[in-house]
């Protein structure tokens, strides 16, 4: 194992590492777009007809226009390969089609309006749960008493469905205690604006959704960190260090550093789950982000909005994964020695 590690660090790994990752991301994007394109074509039923009828456009001319528009956009009259290419070229120009639910608005506009709410909820929840979870896990690995509380609590939290903890929090802290509002992104009686009042109101509505996302994710990180630290403390280098008489604090510090690396990878692996969690949490709290939009899209059979949201999510996850890859290079000493020319 050690030999293999040194081997990779002496080459020119960094460029290859990123080239590989970028290739995977590019492929993922192509696959996602293709899936998006394929689904309305290969699923049973006539999506165009059902979308037009669902849109409940009163004038027949408007319905006719929509039908023509959809048929044109899907291009069902063209050969399949041409439909595929058109889909791509429209997409690359930022054209996601028009929303059926809020009819004349472009899907991209609808999504961009919702995006800040989702990001404002997810980014703090993901980062803080990761930091606090790792910290709690590392502490638990050290103290038996803490371990006996952190571990069961951690398993309980991880096993909870996101929406359930959201419902429970809304019930306990919202309905019963009345501390926080349980629905919406801001109060209905204020207009969104750049004022302190609005910011406070926004923060007030943000607490419960944030808390539910934070709590569920927290348990997993704590358990993961605890297990990794215990594993590291039992490894050969730890026994060697303690045989040399190194202070426990030093050994723990090394163990922590080694244990954090898989947790960074774990963050990348977990992103999909966290996105899913954010979506259902938003639905519970009627928070005006992508999750609520997806619900509306499904209920109104607005497939353009649904597909647009899907691509937005994929792009978001790809960007987040790329950021994690960069962070990984920064925190992993092996890739850094490779970068400096590799002295080991």
């Amino acid at each position: 194992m050690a030999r293999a590690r040194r081997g990779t660090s002496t080459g020119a790994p960094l460029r290859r590492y990123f080239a590989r990752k970028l290739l995977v991301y590019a492929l993922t994007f192509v696959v996602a777009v293709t899936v998006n394109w394929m689904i309305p074509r290969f699923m049973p039923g006539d999506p165009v007809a059902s979308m037009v009828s669902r849109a409940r456009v009163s004038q027949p001319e408007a319905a006719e226009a929509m039908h023509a528009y959809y048929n044109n956009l899907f291009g069902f009259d063209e050969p399949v390969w041409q439909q595929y290419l058109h889909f791509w070229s429209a997409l690359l120009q930022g054209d996601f089609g028009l929303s059926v639910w809020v009819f004349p608005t472009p899907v991209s506009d609808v999504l961009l309006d919702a995006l800040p709410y989702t990001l404002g909820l997810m980014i703090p929840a993901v980062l803080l749960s990761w930091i606090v979870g790792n910290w709690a896990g590392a502490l638990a690995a050290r103290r038996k008493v803490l371990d006996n509380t952190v571990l069961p609590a951690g398993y309980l939290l991880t096993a909870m469905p996101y929406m359930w903890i959201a419902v429970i929090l809304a019930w306990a802290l919202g309905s019963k205690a009345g501390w926080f509002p349980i629905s919406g992104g801001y109060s209905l009686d204020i207009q969104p604006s750049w004022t302190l009042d609005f910011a406070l109101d926004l923060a007030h509505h943000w607490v419960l959704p944030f808390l539910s996302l934070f709590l569920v994710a927290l348990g997993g990180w704590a358990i993961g960190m605890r297990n990794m630290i215990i594993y590291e403390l039992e490894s050969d280098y730890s026994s060697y260090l303690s045989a040399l008489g190194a202070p426990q604090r030093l050994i723990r510090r090394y163990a922590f550093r080694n244990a954090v690396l898989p947790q960074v990878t774990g963050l990348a692996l977990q992103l999909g789950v966290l996105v899913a969690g954010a979506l259902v949490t938003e639905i519970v709290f009627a928070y005006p982000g992508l999750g609520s939009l997806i619900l509306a899209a499904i209920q109104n059979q607005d497939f353009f909005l649904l597909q647009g949201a899907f691509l937005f999510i994929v792009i978001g996850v790809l960007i987040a994964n790329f950021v994690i890859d960069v962070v990984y290079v920064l925190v992993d000493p092996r890739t850094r020695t490779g970068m400096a020319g590799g002295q080991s």
Partner: protein
Amino acid sequence: MSAPPGPAGSDSAAVATPVEKKAVGPARETLHYAVRNPKLLIGFTVVALLLALGLFGPPLLDTTDPNAYGGPQAAPPDSTYWMGTTTFGQDVYAQFVHGLRATFLVGAVGGAIAAVVAMLVGFFAGYRGGVLDELLTMVTNVVLVIPALAVLLIINAYLGVRSVPVQGVFIGLTSWPWAARAIRAQTFTLRTREFVDLARLSGSGTWRIVFREIAPNMSSYLFMMFILLFGGSVLIASSLDFIGLGPTGGVSLGLMLQSAQQWSALQLGMWWWFVPPGAGITAIVGALYVANVGLDEVFNPKLRES
């Protein structure tokens, strides 16, 4: 989307630990530790009790239709309606025991399919190496990065009629990547062992070596992975049900949560409507995770408490 937060850490720990079951000793020793491991016992007992409730609960009820309207409306739990009733006078307990069935079914189908795909991809990528490995790893990474829920959302939205097994199949087909990666890493460490070399020298084919030599040596690991995939499937299914993409015309714990949410059980203070289904899911998944830790301690001598 399926990697439950637990395995992210325990997974890499397990990957790095040798899985030489042969060296640990005979199955009797494993059993010896298994029946003495409290985590394993508690976890499996909780799962078994809930499974029994799901299997035997519905036949013991007066009605066969858990969604039947009748009885008092929005009544809190009492001796007749153990978990109270919904706004429409549906018996929450009847829905709960029926919903448990759907939960176990979707976990079993989703977990099994994900495990089979993960094993095929992981074993062959890890054992054959080379171009096949590059290709399978690439596919795994691509599927890993696409959030499964997002894929399931659009597929489910287009499908007209939905059932629990179909839901399980789709969940299984999207939730295998993390497990495939872990199996690949495990296979990597096993493929250069003497007994594998010996099998190769004696002329065994890839298929035979993988399933006769490599797989049995990580059977404990595979079993633990199945448990995590099972729990993951249950959680994903509950999310889909909650969004309104659950089985049509059936009942599941996720659908119960959805209707509680839809009919403002929260605002009306009807806690008995939304607490049982969520608690049921949490109990099943949590018990599986705890049992998994117990299994880890049983199979892995390093982790045993003296």
